[in-house]
């Protein structure tokens, strides 16, 4: 039987059990969705298949033969390729060089240019058969000039240049893509399926799974929690399998009473984006900003927070009018949660205590000194309050799962006790369980603590679920904010695509 089969795979890291017996059955010619919350063991399983991690126990077979790759090179040789979540490209090199990297055709170490060109051309044809992206995806284009969608396609091109490629592992391939790029990716994945490849597709987006996957397997706590045909399962079934709880509890909403205006912008324009944005944010409400990736949502938050230059227009925070530095904004009680958690939002090498207290290192010891004990105590409070799963305040943030990292980033804003929270993609790369916790926290902040919350998100469903009003950003122009009662997910998606 062709395809990959895993039976009772186990893996432990020291005292932590990552996989406690996972079964997976992926057939050639199908797209198989691998679902589960962060930390459920999806990544470990994928790494085992890709040869980056060796399992402690269990059996793997590839096309019926025992499969036990000792390193990534062995897995590649057997026809297994991983396209990981981290963009794994060399930005200084060309598309062709990236596609061929590690498998360059050579004679005595000297590159065979003609052959290299031919291989790269074949791979590019496979990912872009209509030539729609031909002007960007040239073999000699530098990867650093490409957008995220094109980079993703280059990575897939690299994976499928291997003539023996039989199993393609895609780890959250759409996490940084806009809608157009997602379509292009789906087209490529469908073609690969028709060509008889087995594809394992990891994603948090159930709507994507419904469109692209044939079957699914859910992993929970290191075990297979369920498997089946996508067409025969409802999203509610799948979420219940993933979280062990039902979807209705996902968006709690307490009665909210909007208060005074704390933040407003008037015709705000940044250096490039946004072009024009006016908004009003009150205490005790959640304002959602919808829009496609690249529409200027992130830039709007950055301009408000003082990270990007304001070219025109005004920002008013409380009684204060005008631009300000991030330090000044924090002093005024405005905090930003970055969309780039690993690169900007958190210092991954530092501990939870360091990260939580970083923006306000006062009152943590005598005479303005900072004592580790007080920092730990301060962090411990928020670890408990937000339910961060960790070894303790001294655990490095890099050792946490995505959802728990995001909770630490949010804890910093709470510790700083800001009144206005600017949240940029607060649930990106966050599993269902942690997402529910974050939604509940946002609701509590608006309702009980009377904070003002501005949320940017690519997921229209999420905004409709948590916001009181939603404004849509399109090509740098922010539309009027409307109450969620007048909007639904479809209307938001149409408007952010510029169709209304």
């Amino acid at each position, binding site marked *: 039987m062709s395809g990959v089969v895993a039976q009772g795979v186990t893996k432990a890291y020291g005292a932590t059990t990552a996989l406690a017996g996972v079964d997976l059955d992926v057939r050639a010619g199908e797209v198989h969705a691998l679902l589960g919350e962060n930390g459920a063991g999806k990544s470990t399983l994928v790494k085992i298949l890709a040869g980056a991690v060796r399992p402690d126990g269990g059996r793997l077979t590839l096309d019926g033969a025992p499969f036990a790759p000792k390193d990534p090179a062995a897995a590649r040789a057997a026809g297994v390729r991983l396209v990981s979540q981290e963009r794994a490209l*060399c*930005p200084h*090199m060309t598309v062709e*060089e990236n596609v061929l*990297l*590690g*498998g360059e055709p*050579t004679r005595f170490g000297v590159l065979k*240019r003609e052959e290299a060109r031919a291989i790269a051309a074949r791979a590019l044809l496979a990912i872009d058969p209509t030539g729609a992206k031909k002007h960007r995806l040239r073999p000699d284009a530098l990867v650093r000039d490409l957008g995220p969608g094109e980079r993703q396609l280059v990575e897939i091109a690299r994976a499928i240049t291997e003539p023996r490629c039989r199993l393609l592992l895609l780890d959250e391939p759409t996490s940084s893509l806009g809608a157009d790029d997602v379509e292009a990716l789906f087209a490529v994945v469908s073609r690969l399926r028709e060509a008889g490849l087995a594809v394992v597709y990891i994603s948090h987006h159930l709507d994507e799974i419904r469109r692209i996957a044939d079957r699914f397997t859910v992993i929970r706590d290191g075990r297979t929690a369920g498997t089946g045909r996508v067409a025969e399962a409802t999203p509610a079934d799948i979420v219940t399998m993933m979280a062990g709880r039902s979807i209705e509890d996902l968006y709690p909403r307490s009665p909210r009473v909007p208060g005074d205006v704390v933040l407003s912008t008037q015709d705000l324009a940044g250096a490039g984006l946004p072009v024009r944005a006016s908004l009003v944010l009150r205490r005790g409400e959640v304002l959602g900003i919808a829009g496609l990736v690249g529409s200027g949502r992130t830039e709007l938050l950055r301009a408000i927070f003082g990270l990007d230059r304001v070219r025109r227009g005004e920002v008013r925070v409380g009684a204060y009018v005008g631009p300000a530095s991030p330090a000044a904004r924090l002093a005024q009680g405005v905090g930003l949660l970055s969309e780039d958690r690993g690169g900007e939002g958190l210092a991954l090498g530092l501990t939870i205590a360091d990260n939580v207290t970083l923006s306000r290192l006062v009152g943590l010891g005598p005479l303005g000194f900072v004592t580790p004990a007080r920092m730990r105590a301060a962090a411990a409070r928020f670890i408990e309050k937000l339910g961060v799963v960790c070894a303790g305040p001294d655990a490095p943030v890099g050792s946490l799962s995505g959802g728990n990292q995001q909770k630490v980033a949010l804890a910093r804003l709470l510790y700083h006790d800001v009144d206005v929270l600017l949240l940029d993609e607060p649930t990106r790369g966050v599993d269902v369980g942690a997402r529910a916790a974050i939604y509940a926290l946002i609701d509590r902040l608006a309702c009980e603590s009377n904070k003002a919350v501005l949320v940017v998100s690519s997921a229209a469903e999420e905004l409709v679920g948590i916001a009181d009003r939603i404004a849509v950003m399109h090509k740098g122009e922010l539309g009027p904010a409307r109450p969620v009662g007048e909007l639904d997910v479809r209307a938001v998606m149409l408007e952010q695509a510029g169709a209304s």
Partner: protein
Amino acid sequence: MKYLRKYPFLGPLVAVVVVYVIFAIVAPGSFTRAENLTTMAGQTVVVGIAASGMTLVMLLGGIDLSVGSNVALSTVVCALCMRAGAPAILAAAAAMASGLLSGLVNGALVTTLRITPFIVTLGTMRALRGLAKGLADEQKIDAPSSGLDALVAPLPPGYGWALFPPGVWIMLATSGLVAAMLVYTKGGRHIVAIGSNEATARLCGVRVERVKWLVYGLAGLFAGLAGVMEFSTLTVGDPTDSVGLELEVIAAVVIGGGSLAGGEGSVAGALFGALLMTVIRTGSTYLGIDNWVQDIVTGGIVVTAVALDRARRASETRR
């Protein structure tokens, strides 16, 4: 702009030409004589050869601070061999072997101990210097330099057809070889890939550790060759020679478009960077400008080169 991006050495080339023309106008007429060009080329040889190796190391995202000490050690090894009566070619080979060995030690420490190259080579910089002093008994070593002294000396009468002393041709040949290796061989592309994104290179099956090891070895080999050239200039083995040379070599690479973060750098650019510093030094001497002014100017040029490069990059991404 487009050309500058494809051929990063054009920037430093233009700088060399501009600076040369300025000196040609303001300096005494003897500055533009052909002999002076030959002399300047000869004075660039040591830094130029070492810069080829440094370009490779910096493309990897590494750095080699031990170059100066390595050069000094090579002059000592070379002088000891010559004094013992070895033929010139053998002495040169011994000096290069000592350079290669030192480089391989750097590479082994970087790859096996996983210490950052800055620290490793900071250590070997001192250690190699000590080794050179020990070998030389803390003294300069006088040795017959017959055969090697012609490498960078002005061409004897009747050999004008060669245009430059042999050392200059050796420098051009090694630079050409290294540049071709970077473009046309798998190993060369792997060096750039590691500097650009090491994790990716490893994922793609590039043997990262082996490539690094070899690159540090190559850098050592070039330092050894540079040491032979230095011996040819000094005609003695001097364990206290070339202190701070590594910074000049790094400056040449950076002026030539190299980045400390890896993934970028050009052998030709580094060569022009080295030449630029020589032209400034020589021109200033012709004008009677004090040494301290030259230092300030050279320092300014390093920073300006990087600033210009960044500005160009920024304007490209804004586009």
